[in-house]
């Protein structure tokens, strides 16, 4: 787009033409210092009180000036109307600024404009994160405003090493994104590769983290994401200190963390608030819960269908009695129960909250109770399925993967028994082990085995030892 014209009328005409007469683009004409001016802003993006008190009142008191450049020099260098006063030289920049909550002053005889940061759009305040529960840590989460999120990081890491690079992505959305990293912790080569990946992202809009993540992950099909997300500034700070990079996106209360390792799905900030022995207990509980969530229905089905000798005779007879009434095969029963759960879960997530409650009642009381009483589903199978589902909720970060793997393993176990489960385990293991992000193996430090990495994965060492180690994720780079 071409640059601003020196004629105020022509500039205003161009602005009207480009905006298509959009009614939220406000053009306030006035004369100050003897020169015709116009203040362009976008309705709803600026604060009316701020613009009146900090822009209009001082600007209208300006004494007579010789020409427009002198007027702009006076406003920019002497009045200091706002801390952020970018010069605008073309219409692209002008529209990007007014759509970001700036007011832009243009004047007769000037081929540039002067922007003032007077953002005043409605936004959600800092609230407790909804998805990453925490007992002992901070209760603040990211919001949709990228600058608020940047300030939350800066409040926690008051170090000049923390670098936040702003850039714009999306040819239509012009979304602000912020690349954050600790410049003393992240190798410059890694940052260069991340920037190259982001440069490749030729998008029209960036509306969720999922728009950018594929560009920062390897392209081959992988089960698990090799980048992570967090909605907690404290968690992100800990990741940055460990030498990871992060991307904040305006309009999204989540940060993308690069790289993500498998073991991180089992770590929470609370682990570091408790005594190490309890943290280790909780961590292993999560590892077990993950295995239960993925394998329990499959192993149960495989054992009952193909390997009943693994059960003792008393337990077997209980299962025989329970299954006598069920009209469907165990595999079909298990698939039915798991599908029912997924449907109910999806309904609960998407429906409005008052209706969501009703869904819980219908599913828990009516469907669950009725299915067992009618003999459609046996009680042991329902117990096994419920345990598996509960196990999946313990590791919410990988819940989608757990869901799909649970179904795949169930089919493998139901069709081929433990043999099928073993083979599928090998394939999944190979897929997980093949996952990498910028040379960081997803399965580190388990494989490749790095003994020092066990201090915060297999166990959780004392904070003093962990901090004194000066760990960075670079130790895992291959």
């Amino acid at each position, binding site marked *: 787009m071409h640059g601003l014209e020196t004629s105020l009328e022509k500039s205003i005409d161009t602005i009207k033409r480009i905006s298509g007469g959009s009614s939220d683009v406000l053009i306030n004409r006035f004369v100050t210092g003897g020169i015709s001016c116009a203040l362009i802003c976008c309705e709803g993006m600026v604060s009316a009180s701020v613009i009146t008190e900090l822009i209009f009142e001082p600007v209208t008191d300006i004494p007579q000036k010789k020409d427009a450049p002198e007027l702009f020099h006076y406003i920019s260098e002497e009045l200091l109307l706002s801390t952020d006063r970018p010069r605008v030289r073309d219409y692209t920049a002008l529209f990007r600024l007014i759509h970001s909550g700036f007011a832009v002053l243009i004047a007769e005889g000037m081929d540039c404009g002067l922007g003032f940061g007077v953002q005043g759009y409605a936004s959600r305040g800092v609230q407790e994160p909804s998805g990453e529960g925490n007992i002992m840590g901070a209760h603040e989460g990211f919001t949709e405003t990228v600058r608020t999120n940047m300030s939350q990081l800066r409040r926690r890491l008051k170090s000049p090493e923390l670098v936040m690079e702003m850039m714009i992505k999306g040819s239509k959305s012009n979304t602000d994104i912020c690349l954050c990293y600790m410049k003393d912790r992240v190798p410059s080569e890694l940052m260069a590769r991340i920037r190259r990946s982001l440069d490749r992202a030729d998008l029209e809009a960036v509306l969720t983290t999922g728009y950018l993540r594929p560009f920062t992950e390897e392209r081959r099909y992988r089960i698990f994401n090799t980048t992570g997300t967090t909605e907690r500034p404290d968690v992100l700070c800990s990741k940055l200190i460990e030498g990871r990079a992060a991307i904040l996106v305006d309009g999204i209360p989540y940060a993308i963390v690069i790289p993500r390792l498998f073991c991180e799905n089992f770590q929470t900030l609370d682990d570091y608030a408790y005594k190490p022995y309890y943290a280790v207990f909780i961590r292993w509980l999560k590892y077990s819960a993950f295995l239960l969530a993925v394998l329990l229905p499959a192993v149960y089905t495989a054992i*009952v269908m*193909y390997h009943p000798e693994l059960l003792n*005779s008393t337990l077997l007879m209980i299962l*025989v009695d329970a299954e*006598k009434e069920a009209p469907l095969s165990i595999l079909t029963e298990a698939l039915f129960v798991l599908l029912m759960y997924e449907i109910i879960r999806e309904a609960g997530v998407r429906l409005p909250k008052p209706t969501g409650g009703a869904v819980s009642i219908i599913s828990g009381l009516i469907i669950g109770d009725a299915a067992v009483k009618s003999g459609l589903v046996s009680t042991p199978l329902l117990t096994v399925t419920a345990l598996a589902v509960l196990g999946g909720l313990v590791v919410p970060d990988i819940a989608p993967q757990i869901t799909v793997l649970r179904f795949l393993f169930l089919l493998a176990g139901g069709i081929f*028994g433990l043999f*099928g489960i073993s083979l599928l385990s*090998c394939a999944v293991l190979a897929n997980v082990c093949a996952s990498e992000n910028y040379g960081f193996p997803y399965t580190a430090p388990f494989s490749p085995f790095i003994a020092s990495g066990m201090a915060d994965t297999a166990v959780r060492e004392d904070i003093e030892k962990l901090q004194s180690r000066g760990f960075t994720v670079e130790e895992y780079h291959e």
Partner: protein
Amino acid sequence: MNSITSPQLAAMLVISDLFALVCYNGGLSAYTAVGLVSGIALQYVMVIPLVKAADKGKTLPKAVKLLLVSGLVLWGGALLGGLWKAADITFVPYENAGGFPGKLEITAMVAAVSLYVAYEGTKAAARSSLIAAFTGVIFLLTDLISGIRPSNFGNIPAAAQYGTFMDGLRLSFLGGGSLITFIALLPCVKGRKIKAASLYFLCRGILSAAVVMTAVLVTGGIMDTADFPVIMSAQLSQPFSSQRIDALFLILFAVFGVFALTVQVMTAAFLAGEIFSRFRRWRCTAAIALTLLAMGIFTGCTSTGQVSDKSYVRCVGTDGKSVTLSFFSDERIITADGEDISSALAAAEIKAGRPVVTGFTELIILGNCNRKAVLEDMLKKWKVSPSCMVMYSGDPVSVINNTDPSLLEGSLKEAVRQGKAPVCDIVTVLGNMQK
């Protein structure tokens, strides 16, 4: 090829060696164990010059690479052959894995998964092998600990005739084709190669010795019966008296089978890729073909399903031709005839109107018959628990018809506890028969 670490190399190779040992179908003795460990030590000494050369950055000539590819293909074939032979005895899946279609299905599926893992690349295979080996060692330890209960030091001299020192030495070389893989992968190892060599041969020596000695201690008394002594020892190493957990061994068998094959395929593909530049495309095609093969022979692999649609044998009486069965969940007592106990059992299933599961049998009453053959069949084909008790009666049918089986079992256990009857579990009885 991407670099791999010493533990990853050791894991990949040890998995192959252990899998070869699992599929070994000859006699084993303490002498074999000594021969095997000596052979491994000898191989270590033999490879040191090669390791030193690799440390200096020397590469293999093309002709040697071609030889190694041939060796890898043969070794891979041997492993696949072992898998083929052992597939029956590991009964995968439980009910319908027997026979040619079942074996083909198992072998093809393992091959397909192996090719997928190989396709994911060296790093992925190396990393996943390390995790698989770690899991495998936990399983082996469980097996070894479980093996303490049925172990008998008297089995060491009993098994002495089944294997010599030279057998062990031969086993270490012929059954240890991983030496070829070791030579082929050595240039890809990060850091000092001698460290990688030492770690591999140490792990191989310790684990091989532990596995062979457990097999000798557990199955030495019935080595004559054991076609696959390592598998048999895993099947008899039960930590609980009332159930068999050897199906868990199946997991180890399948996982080790996949990775053993993967390592050969991947290494051969790597070397062949250096010699023939278009090998990558062939490999993918082979993977697809094998996967289709596995899908094509899908028949016969689905279960009859319901756990409640089967009858579970509690007590069996037999004279070698007919069987009389009493069940856990069924009041009926069924008698059926046949040419041998397998056909008699099939006839009993027709009479019962449902499949009969023999894995829970607690008591066998033998009549006048070839008792050793009958008990061997019951242990190997019927998969009865090693704690299953055996007694003799001139008329097993009337004993079962007139006595409550639980009372009979209780009386027998009490008599054994008081020393008034000899230890009569099936493994001990078979062992005594072989003496």
